[in-house]
C-alpha cells in the first residue's frame, strides 16, 4: 500500500514534469517558458546605461562601442576585421533569432523547426535553387580578400555571441519554438542575399502573359499590355543622351513564342506595393548649396525591424547607415563624402523555359539540336519529429525544373516541366558593391562600386560633397531581344537563351541632370530610346510623378523639405482618374447612402490622410471597377490564369476610347457602357463597405480601414504592432499600405560634416522584451525622423550618448 502510493505519486510527478518540459504541437513547453529562472522573464530588459567590458576570442585589438539613447551602436575599431567582428557580435546580440530564421527560410529549413507543415514551403525554396545560388555566391564572396575578411570576421562575431549563450539567455523566439541557435556559417550571408533577391527580383507574369497571348493574339495583347505606359516620368530623365555605343542586341527569333498549352500558375506576381523611393537634390536646389539625399525602401513591414542601424569607424572608413541582419557592412547610408540609397528596379531577370525530355527517365533534354544531360541535385530536408525527406531536383543549363509533370506544386500551381532561369543563380559578389560604397569618396568610386553588382537590381541614388548627384538603375541585366521573357520561352531553342549581359558601364545612369535632381520610385528605368530591353512593365507612375512634381518646384531645400515629401499623401491616381470617371456616374441610380458617399468623393482633395474617408471609397471602388471592366474578358480559373491590363491602361481606355467594347460585360446579353460599369462598381463598393464598417461614418476613415499591420516574423500577433494608424497607401509617396511600407526612412544633407536623419517602424532590438523593440514606431508613424549621430571619434561628446562597451 505504502509502495503503491509512493510509486503512483512519484510517477505522477515525473510525468507532469515530462509533460511540462516538452512542446505539444504548436504549444510551447510551458514550465521552462514560465519559469522566472530560464523562461521568457529572462528576456525582459530595462534601460541600462552602465558601461560594459566583454572579453571575446577573435578580436585583434580592443574595440570601443558607444551606444546612443536609441541603443544604436557606434563602433570604433582599429582595423576592418574588428569592425565586422563587432558588427556580427552586436547584430547577433540584438537580432540573432531574426538572422537565423530568415536564412533558414531561404535555405528551405523551416520544417526543421515547425515540422511537416512547412515541408512544401521548404521544397519550393529549394526547387527555386536558393541553395544552388547561395553556394555559388559564397564562393565568389570568399574569393575576394576584401569581402572574405568582412564575411569571416562577421561570422566570427556572431559565433562569439552564440557561444556565450545558455538556454536562459536564448532569444525569446527560441524558447517559444523550442530549439537552439546553431553556429553561423559564411554561406548564411549568401542565403540572406538570396532571400532579398527572392523578395525583390522574383515577380513573373510570363505564364499569365502567354495565356493572354494565346487567348487574344498579338495585336490585342500589345494594345492592352504595352511596353511603355501611357503616363510615365522615367528614372533617367527623358532626353538624356546615351554616352555609349551599344553592343549588338540579339535579333528576335522567328518563332519567339512557345507553343504552350494553357497552363495554370499562380506564380507570385510582382507586388506593386513592394517598391521604394529615393532622390537627391543638387546644389542649386539646396539651402546650403550641398546636395541632400533621401531614401525610403518599401517592404512587407515586419518585426523585428528589417534594418539595423550601425556606425562603423576604422582607418579605412567611417560609415553610418542601415545594415541588414545577416550581411556585413552598411547597405543604405552615408560617410563624410558621399550618401547613397537604393530602390528596386524590377528588371525581368526570371524566365521560364519549356523543357523537352528524351524519355520518361528524364536524363536528357533537347537543346540546340542535341540531347543534353540533366543533372540531379539532392535536397535533404530535415523534418521535426519525422524522418528526413530527400527531394531530387532536375537541373538543365537554364536552371532547375521547379516541378515535374505529375508533381503537385506548392500551394498553387507553378508551371510543371519548366526550367527557371533566375539571376540569383549566377555567381556574383554583390556584397563587394556595398563594401566599396561604404568607403567611396566620389562619383568615380560610386561607379566603380556599382560595376560588380548583380542582383536584386537596384536604382542606386548618389550625392557627394563635390556637389555631384547621380542615379543608376543598376544590376546584371541579361542581354535580351525586345520582350524576351515577357512570355514563356522555348527551352529547346538556343535563340531563346540569355545571350550575355548588358555591359555594366552601359547600364542606365545620369549625373547632374539639368533639372537639378535625380529620383526613382520603381517606375520605368528609361524612356523607350534606351537601346536595351530591361523589362516591359515597371512600378506604376504615380509616386515618381508626384516626387518629380514636388522636386521640380522645390527651392532652398532643407532636410525637412525632403522629410515632408517622404510623408506626402497626395493620391495622384485619384487626381488623374476621378475627373475622368465622375462625370460617367449615373447619380439618379444611387441610393441615399451611395449618394452620400459620392458627395464625399467629390469633395475629397485627393489626400490619403488618416481621417479621410475618400481614400477608403476610392481604393475599394477602383478594385471593383477593374473587376467590372476586365473580369469577363480575362476570367481566371484553375487551369488557366490570366491577368488584367494595368490601371494606367484602363484609365487611358476611359480617356481615349470611352466607347470601347471592353466595357461590355460578356456575361450579360445587354451591352454595358463605361457609365454602367462605373456606377455599378460604385454602388457595390458602398454596399460592401457598409457591410464591413456599418453606415458611412468614422469607421470608414482611411487609417481605420487600412489598419496597417507590422507583423512578427513568426506570425505571432501578440509580438506584432497591429492596427497602426497612419495615412498613405499604394501609389502614394508615403507608401504605407495594409502590410507594406517604408521600412527605413533616411535623409542626409551633405556638407562639411553630414547631417543625417532616419527612422524605422520598430526599434534597434529584436527582443520583444526590450524597451528598444518598438520605441521608434511612434516617430515613424507621425512622419518624424531621429537625428543620426555621426561621430568622428570615440571621445565625441553628445548628451544622447549613453554608454560604452569595450570588446577585447
Amino acid at each position, binding site marked *: 500500500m*505504502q509502495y503503491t502510493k509512493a510509486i503512483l505519486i512519484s510517477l505522477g*510527478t515525473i510525468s*507532469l514534469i515530462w509533460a511540462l518540459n516538452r512542446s505539444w504541437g504548436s504549444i510551447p513547453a510551458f514550465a521552462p517558458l514560465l519559469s*522566472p529562472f530560464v523562461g*521568457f522573464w529572462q528576456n*525582459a530588459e530595462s534601460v541600462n546605461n552602465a558601461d560594459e567590458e566583454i572579453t571575446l576570442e577573435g578580436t585583434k585589438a580592443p574595440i570601443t562601442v558607444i551606444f546612443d539613447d536609441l541603443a544604436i551602436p557606434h563602433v570604433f575599431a582599429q582595423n576592418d576585421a574588428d569592425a565586422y567582428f563587432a558588427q556580427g557580435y552586436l547584430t547577433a546580440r540584438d537580432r540573432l533569432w531574426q538572422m537565423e530564421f530568415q536564412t533558414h527560410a531561404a535555405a528551405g529549413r523551416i520544417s526543421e523547426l515547425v515540422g511537416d507543415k512547412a515541408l512544401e514551403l521548404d521544397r519550393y525554396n529549394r526547387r527555386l535553387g536558393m541553395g544552388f545560388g547561395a553556394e555559388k555566391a559564397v564562393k565568389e564572396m570568399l574569393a575576394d580578400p576584401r569581402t572574405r575578411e568582412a564575411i569571416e570576421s562577421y561570422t566570427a562575431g556572431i559565433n562569439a555571441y552564440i557561444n556565450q549563450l545558455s538556454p536562459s539567455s536564448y532569444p525569446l523566439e527560441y524558447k517559444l519554438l523550442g530549439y537552439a541557435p546553431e553556429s553561423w556559417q559564411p554561406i548564411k550571408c549568401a542565403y540572406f542575399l538570396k532571400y532579398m533577391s527572392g523578395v525583390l527580383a522574383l515577380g513573373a507574369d510570363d505564364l499569365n502573359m502567354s495565356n493572354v497571348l494565346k487567348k487574344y493574339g498579338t495585336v490585342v495583347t500589345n494594345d492592352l499590355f504595352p511596353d511603355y505606359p501611357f503616363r510615365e516620368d522615367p528614372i533617367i530623365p527623358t532626353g538624356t543622351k546615351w554616352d555609349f555605343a551599344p553592343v549588338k542586341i540579339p535579333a528576335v527569333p522567328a518563332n519567339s513564342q512557345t507553343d504552350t498549352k494553357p497552363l495554370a500558375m499562380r506564380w507570385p506576381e510582382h507586388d506593386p506595393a513592394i517598391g521604394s523611393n529615393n532622390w537627391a537634390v543638387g546644389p542649386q536646389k539646396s539651402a546650403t548649396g550641398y546636395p541632400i539625399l533621401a531614401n525610403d525602401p518599401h517592404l512587407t513591414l515586419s518585426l523585428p525591424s528589417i534594418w539595423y542601424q550601425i556606425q562603423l569607424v576604422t582607418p579605412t572608413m567611417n560609415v553610418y547607415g542601415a545594415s541588414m541582419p545577416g550581411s556585413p557592412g552598411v547597405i543604405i547610408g552615408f560617410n563624410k563624402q558621399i550618401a547613397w540609397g537604393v530602390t528596386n528596379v524590377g528588371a525581368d531577370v526570371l524566365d521560364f523555359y519549356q523543357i523537352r525530355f528524351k524519355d520518361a527517365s528524364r536524363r536528357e533534354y533537347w537543346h540546340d539540336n542535341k540531347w543534353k544531360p540533366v543533372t540531379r541535385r539532392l535536397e535533404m530536408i530535415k523534418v521535426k519529429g519525422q524522418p528526413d525527406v530527400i527531394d531530387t531536383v532536375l537541373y538543365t543549363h537554364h536552371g532547375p525544373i521547379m516541378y515535374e509533370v505529375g508533381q503537385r506544386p506548392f500551394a498553387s500551381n507553378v508551371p510543371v516541366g519548366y526550367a527557371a532561369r533566375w539571376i540569383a543563380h549566377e555567381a556574383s559578389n554583390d556584397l563587394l558593391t556595398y563594401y566599396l560604397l561604404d568607403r567611396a569618396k566620389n562619383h568615380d568610386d560610386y561607379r566603380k562600386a556599382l560595376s560588380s553588382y548583380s542582383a536584386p537590381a537596384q536604382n542606386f541614388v548618389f550625392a557627394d560633397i563635390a556637389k555631384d548627384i547621380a542615379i543608376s538603375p543598376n544590376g546584371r541585366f541579361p542581354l535580351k531581344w525586345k520582350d524576351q521573357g515577357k512570355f514563356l520561352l522555348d527551352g529547346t531553342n538556343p535563340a531563346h537563351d540569355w545571350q550575355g549581359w548588358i555591359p555594366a558601364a552601359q547600364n542606365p545612369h545620369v549625373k547632374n541632370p539639368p533639372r537639378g535632381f535625380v529620383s526613382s520610385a520603381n517606375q520605368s528605368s528609361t524612356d523607350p530610346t534606351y537601346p536595351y530591353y530591361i523589362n516591359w512593365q515597371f512600378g506604376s507612375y504615380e509616386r515618381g510623378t508626384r516626387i518629380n512634381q514636388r522636386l521640380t518646384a522645390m527651392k532652398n531645400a532643407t532636410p525637412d523639405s525632403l522629410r515632408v515629401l517622404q510623408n506626402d499623401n497626395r493620391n495622384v491616381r485619384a487626381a488623374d482618374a476621378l475627373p475622368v470617371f465622375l462625370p460617367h456616374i449615373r447619380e439618379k441610380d444611387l441610393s441615399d447612402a451611395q449618394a452620400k458617399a459620392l458627395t464625399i468623393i467629390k469633395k475629397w482633395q485627393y489626400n490619403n490622410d488618416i481621417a479621410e474617408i475618400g481614400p477608403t471609397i476610392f481604393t475599394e471602388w477602383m478594385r471593383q471597377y477593374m473587376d467590372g471592366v476586365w473580369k469577363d474578358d480575362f476570367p481566371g480559373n484553375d487551369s488557366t490564369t490570366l491577368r488584367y491590363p494595368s490601371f494606367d491602361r484602363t484609365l487611358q481606355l476611359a480617356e481615349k476610347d470611352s466607347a470601347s467594347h471592353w466595357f461590355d460585360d460578356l456575361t450579360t446579353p445587354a451591352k454595358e457602357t463605361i457609365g454602367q460599369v462605373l456606377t455599378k462598381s460604385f454602388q457595390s463598393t458602398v454596399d460592401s463597405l457598409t457591410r464591413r464598417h456599418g453606415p458611412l461614418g468614422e469607421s470608414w476613415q482611411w487609417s481605420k480601414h487600412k489598419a496597417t499591420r507590422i507583423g512578427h516574423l513568426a506570425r*505571432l500577433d501578440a509580438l506584432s504592432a497591429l492596427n497602426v494608424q497612419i495615412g498613405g497607401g499604394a501609389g502614394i509617396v508615403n507608401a504605407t499600405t495594409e502590410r507594406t511600407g517604408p521600412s527605413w526612412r533616411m535623409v542626409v544633407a551633405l556638407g562639411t560634416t553630414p547631417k543625417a536623419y532616419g527612422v524605422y517602424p520598430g526599434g534597434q532590438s529584436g527582443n520583444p522584451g526590450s524597451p528598444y523593440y518598438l520605441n521608434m514606431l511612434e516617430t515613424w508613424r507621425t512622419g518624424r525622423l531621429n537625428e543620426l549621430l555621426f561621430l568622428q571619434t570615440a571621445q565625441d561628446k553628445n548628451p544622447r550618448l549613453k554608454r560604452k562597451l569595450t570588446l577585447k
Partner: protein
Amino acid sequence: MIELVLIAILSLLAQLFLPWWSLAIVAFGVCFWRSSGSGRAFLSGFLGVALVWLIYALLIQLRTDGVFVGRMSELLFKTNTSVLPALVACLLGGLVGGLAGLSGYFVKQATRAQPISRTASRSR
C-alpha cells in the same frame, strides 16, 4: 516551516545553475529528509517553490515595464492581463514542487515501512 524555508532557499540556488525541474529534486529531497505529514509535505513543497517563482517573476515585472508581460499574457493566454503570467507560473511551479514534496514524503514512508510490509507479505 523549516521544510518550506529550506525548499525555497535550496530550489532557488539549484535553479540558478540547473534546469527548472531541479526544484522537484530539492522538494523531494527535503520532504524525504523530514516532513511530519503528507499535507504538510505538499504544502511546503508548493509554497516553497511558488513563493520563489512569484517573487522572482514580480521583481522582473516591476523592474521592466509591464508591456512585455502583457504581450506574453496575450500570447499564452489570449488575454492581456499582466498579473496572469506570474500567477500561472507560481501555480505551475508550486504544483510541481508540491507533488515532488509529496512524493518525497511517501517514498520515505514506503522505505521506512519496508520491514513491516515485508513481514506482511511473508505472512500472507
